[in-house]
């Protein structure tokens, strides 16, 4: 194993770890914000979102350490977060929530 190989695999591990810890937290947070926009009774759905956000977090950590390339993992995370935020914005703007 050459030096550059080892370096690349270290970067891979760091990237996966960041995707799991930071990406997971970002997806969970976006989910809570989206849940808050899901109904007129904002509090109820928001608390429901907080209670279920761990599902996203655990799923992201499991996904980040699956045999997919870090680039692909980050891509999926980015799409998830953007989709959730776009849905939130749409609900707020279109339905006045």
């Amino acid at each position, binding site marked *: *194993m050459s030096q550059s190989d080892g370096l690349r*695999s270290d970067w*891979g*591990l760091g990237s*996966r*770890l960041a995707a799991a810890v930071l990406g997971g937290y970002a997806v*969970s*947070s*976006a989910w*809570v*914000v989206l*849940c*808050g926009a899901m109904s007129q*009774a*904002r*509090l*109820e*759905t*928001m*608390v*429901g*979102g*907080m*209670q279920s*956000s*761990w599902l996203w*977090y*655990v799923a992201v*950590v*499991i996904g*980040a*350490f*699956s*045999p*997919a390339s*870090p680039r692909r993992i980050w891509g999926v995370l980015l799409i998830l977060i953007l989709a959730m935020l776009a849905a939130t914005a749409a609900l707020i703007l279109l339905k006045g929530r």
Partner: protein
Amino acid sequence: MQPAKKESGAGKGSFRQAQAWLHTWCGLWFSWLLYAVFLTGTLAVFEEPITHWMTPEHHAHEQAEALQAGSERETASSMSQRLQWGMAYMQRQHPGADMWELWPADAKGGGDLRVYWFDGDGQYAAAQLDPASGNTVDASEVPRVRQTLGGHHFVDFHYQLHAGQLGLWIVGIAALAMLVALVSGVITHRRIFKDFFTFRARKGQRSWLDMHNAVAVLTLPFQFMIAYTGIAISCSTFMPAGIAAYFGTGAEAVKSFQVALNEPGKPQRSGQAMSVPDLESFVLRGQALIGQPVRAVVIDYPGDAAARIGIYGWNDADDLSKRLSPSSGMAMFSAATGELQQLRLPGGVDGGAASLTQSVIGGLHMATYGGLPLKWMYFICGLAGSAMMATGAILFMVKRRGKHQGEFGSSTSTVYRMIEAANVAAIVGLGIACVGFLWANRLLPVEISQRSRWELVVFFALWILALIHALLRSPPLAWRDQMAALAVLCLLLPLLNLVTTGDQLAAYLLDGDWEGAGVELFAVAVGVAAAGAWAWMRKTSGLKPARKQMARELSKGLPVAADASAAKQGSLS
């Protein structure tokens, strides 16, 4: 390097192999902390019996009270007298406070009289009044009892590590790691049903793996539930994004979120002065509405015309054991008009389904339902969870004693050595610290100032000493030394109690004091188990040279790795 080696690593190999890697490392780095959280959380199930054992000066008082129950009631002060004393104290001492809270009596109308308020800094403050005269009870007049955290030490440690908000976050992260380890463990391990019935004793590494699987699989639903509810109880702290998005950031925003969630329709101060009306009629109406005796009377904005009076009830133990949501009844009145503003029946919540879920999550985690049998079930499942982490951490090292895997490059041996030491200190050392905490309770002088802090100092000092000892001593000897220390401390606990307080196990049993007896019986049981483990370690390590194992085995930890063929068979996947 061989291509086969490359299969192990982050995101390497098949999905299951990648999950096995995640399970191994996520499990290892969090196992020690999670073991500590689980063991102390398991002891916290029996917080009250431990507190009872740790406050022996209260025993005589409690017995006298139990004898007098009923006969003495008439001479004690009445509810209306207690309310008046509480109000008089508040008006005299804390006229400007934002909130007054009186706890006039226990569920039977007797007991202590306590008052609480928010002081100038918004901090919750408390005082105790004499239920016979209404005067403030001075700390120096209280009969000399040993100041102790009691069983609450285990409660606080298992969710905050005695480090407040920082500790809460650390434990929360560990709980999430536990969920990840559980999910990746289940994926790694597909023969879940078969392993119900698999246990291969005396097979070295195989036996540790079977034990790890058996305790985890048998109690898997409990482990998922307790880790999840543990996170979800504090979800508004851990996941503040929604609050930040819709309520703003900062302490004020969190407060307005809490008010909107728990106290919808809380009024603002009006600015007009109005004295607080007589409380007794509110208490009587509130008690009738919720069907519970009064526990607390809460007055928001006392002295203002917008003041509200909330009557909170005492949960009945039998009633509480039959419902998942542990909330008590509450009736909220306007102080000015006496109009009922809000009513919550016992077990109910002020919001909708999510609020009820939140209440049930709390009840599930703290075993408020189901009574004593359920507490024992939580206790046993909690011990199984601790065993799951301990066997997992031991398995990691057992696997590597026979076969160096070089994960940490040139420093692999050093890191293995540290992990061995951490295993000993975390698994046995924590046991020593816990029973040492009980020893400190009996040995520290009663009159020492900051006594309850000193008990904590002993707990942490013993734990650190255990770690230093494990780092200095070779692993097999460290395991044996600490196991022996644990056995001695546990087995001698009843004797220590007899010498220092004159209380003894036989007397507890004769008096039917199951709380006191339970603590000592459990300590003795742990002592016997530790002594058994010590004897087994001594025996197996004595056998090894006779079996002509390679000399290097001697320098390596638990004797179970002796079987080299077993080490070859097993890998997690």
